[in-house]
């Protein structure tokens, strides 16, 4: 928080100086781009990029909520942040004439976010993924030989969780990314905010609460997975794949694998968007158009191991990424997957009560 305040102060102080060379202020997730793409954009356009990162939607929304953030490009997740920003009129409609590369986007994927952004007027998909189970399958097979490795039961059935607890279970600290999967496992509407559904989700979560080692931010989970400190986590698909890559680099004697739950995985999309009050919308359009080129997108996916929405980039990827079902889910998984909704303020309040109770364990 102190760092954020300092950044904010710096931004305010720097604002009057921004006139001379064109500057693009990008606010993106941490570890979420290919550094080469930034370098090449600056070289080709002469626009200087000032790059800031966040590690949670909460941080992004917090900064945007106050207004006049000073950013030209933000990368909110489709549900709930992008949806809320569209509804609040906080995003600038994209001028598609200036983004010819938008035709490279997969229309089937773009339709998935058209529900919250009619006609895809405010955003283009950057990267996407699922929420699922990251694990050390070797240890789990030892501790719970009869547990299904591709089911949320691994986590949410106390019989399995209690046995796996010995080697560490983590859940990411995000009601909006966890509650839908829990409701799905309970065969209820994943986006329900009805009180009996939320009560059921709370009971299910409290039943496994004693077996959890931590409820924490997803970068911490990646770190703990790669260090071998935990062997099961409910987290983003890309986190699991990044943790696996880190464990390999460190020559650990175990592998981290990812499974999209067979009950149906929560899909999420991170969307390139321009705040309504962006100081430099021209550069922002140029940047979006630049990113949507197949070879740039292939570079980004190779770097961060999340799938993109530009199909022409897939043949440019090495086979081991192209064929990794953790990165690019198969048709059946996609068909079973669901998109989380965006509850209203009262619904948020109700979900937050459930989540606090779960974290406090009472």
């Amino acid at each position: 928080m102190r760092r954020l305040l300092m950044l904010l102060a710096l931004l305010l102080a720097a604002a009057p100086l921004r006139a001379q060379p064109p500057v693009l202020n990008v606010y993106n997730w941490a570890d979420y781009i290919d550094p080469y793409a930034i370098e090449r954009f600056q070289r080709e356009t002469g626009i200087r990029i000032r790059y800031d990162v966040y590690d949670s939607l909460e941080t992004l929304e917090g900064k945007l909520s106050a207004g006049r953030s000073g950013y030209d490009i933000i990368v909110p997740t489709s549900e709930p942040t992008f949806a809320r920003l569209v509804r609040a009129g906080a995003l600038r409609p994209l001028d598609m004439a200036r983004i010819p590369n938008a035709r490279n986007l997969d229309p089937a994927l773009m339709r998935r976010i058209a529900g919250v952004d009619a006609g895809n007027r405010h955003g283009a998909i950057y990267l996407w993924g699922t929420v699922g189970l990251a694990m050390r399958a070797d240890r789990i097979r030892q501790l719970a030989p009869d547990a299904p490795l591709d089911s949320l039961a691994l986590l949410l059935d106390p019989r399995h969780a209690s046995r796996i607890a010995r080697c560490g279970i983590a859940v990411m600290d995000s009601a909006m990314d966890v509650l839908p999967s829990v409701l799905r496992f309970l065969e209820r509407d994943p986006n329900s905010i009805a009180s009996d559904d939320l009560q059921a989700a709370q009971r299910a979560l409290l039943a496994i609460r004693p077996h959890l080692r931590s409820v924490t931010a997803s970068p911490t989970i990646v770190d703990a997975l790669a260090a071998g400190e935990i062997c099961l986590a409910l987290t983003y698909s890309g986190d699991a794949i990044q943790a696996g890559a880190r464990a390999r680099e460190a020559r650990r004697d175990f592998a981290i694998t990812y499974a999209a739950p067979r009950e149906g995985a929560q899909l999420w999309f991170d969307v390139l968007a321009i705040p309504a009050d962006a100081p430099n919308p021209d550069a922002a359009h140029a940047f979006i158009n630049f990113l949507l080129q197949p070879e740039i997108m292939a570079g980004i996916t190779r770097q961060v191991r999340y799938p993109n929405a530009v199909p022409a980039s897939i043949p440019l990827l090495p086979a081991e990424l192209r064929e990794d079902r953790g990165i690019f889910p198969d048709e059946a998984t996609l068909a079973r997957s669901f998109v989380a909704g965006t509850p209203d303020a009262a619904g948020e309040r109700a979900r937050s009560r459930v989540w606090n109770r779960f974290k406090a364990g009472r």
Partner: protein
Amino acid sequence: MSALRLALWGWLGLAVALPLGIVVALSVGTGAEGVPPVRWPWEEGASLDAWRLMAEDDVVLLALWRSLVVAGTTAGLCVALAFPMALGLLRAAPRWRPLLLALVLLPFLSGFLLRVAAWIGLLRDSGWINALLIAAGLIEEPLRLLGTDLALYLGMVHAYLPFALLPLLAWFAKRDTRLEEAAADLGAGPFTVFRTVTLPLAWPAAAGAFLLVFIPAAGEFVIPELLGPPDAMLAGRAIWSEFFGTRDWPFAGALATALLLVLLIPILAQQRSGLK
């Protein structure tokens, strides 16, 4: 003189009354979709919903209570540690004193988050302490250190110790040592002198040091979040998550006001008892 007074009131108004007023106004506003995600009470009328919700929510009330317990324990530990440290520093040979003081203060020249990150590196399952214990053959499985109350208090005491040490050091340095000498001349042993003369005289300074730690510690959320157990839901963390996570600004405002009210009690109590 009047310019000084103007500056004082201007400062109090801008840095204390105005932000406080905004937070209280938030707490009686209503949540809304938009930027910012709240309707101010003068736009759509005041509402006590957030306060009612808070009064019914035992989890956040527990968070408030736990904040006070954690802050009190931290302040107590800090004062208990600062006492012997201050006395030890003053009794050290004069040429060592600056070096010792510098060593005490050195960690605080490094970034706050960096220090917390260092504790994580020491305490985690694959961290230095566990690696050392395993290498020495003392344990086979790593001890759970990170994410426990132990880690929480290590981080808190480490972060807040100077707030207790510096005021105590200042008091000890300027105390009237003749009283202790007189007691010693009259035959009291060193421990009796400390117990019957030094300690009672130092009491107000110790209470001041306690408060100096207690108040900022009660609102702390970074250390409990990064080092403490997952259920260490303290008030600071609850305010943060309501403000940023749920974007429930009225509720966050009510919580922040409640924390402030609770903190006013010890401050007023200290003023009442005439201690300074």
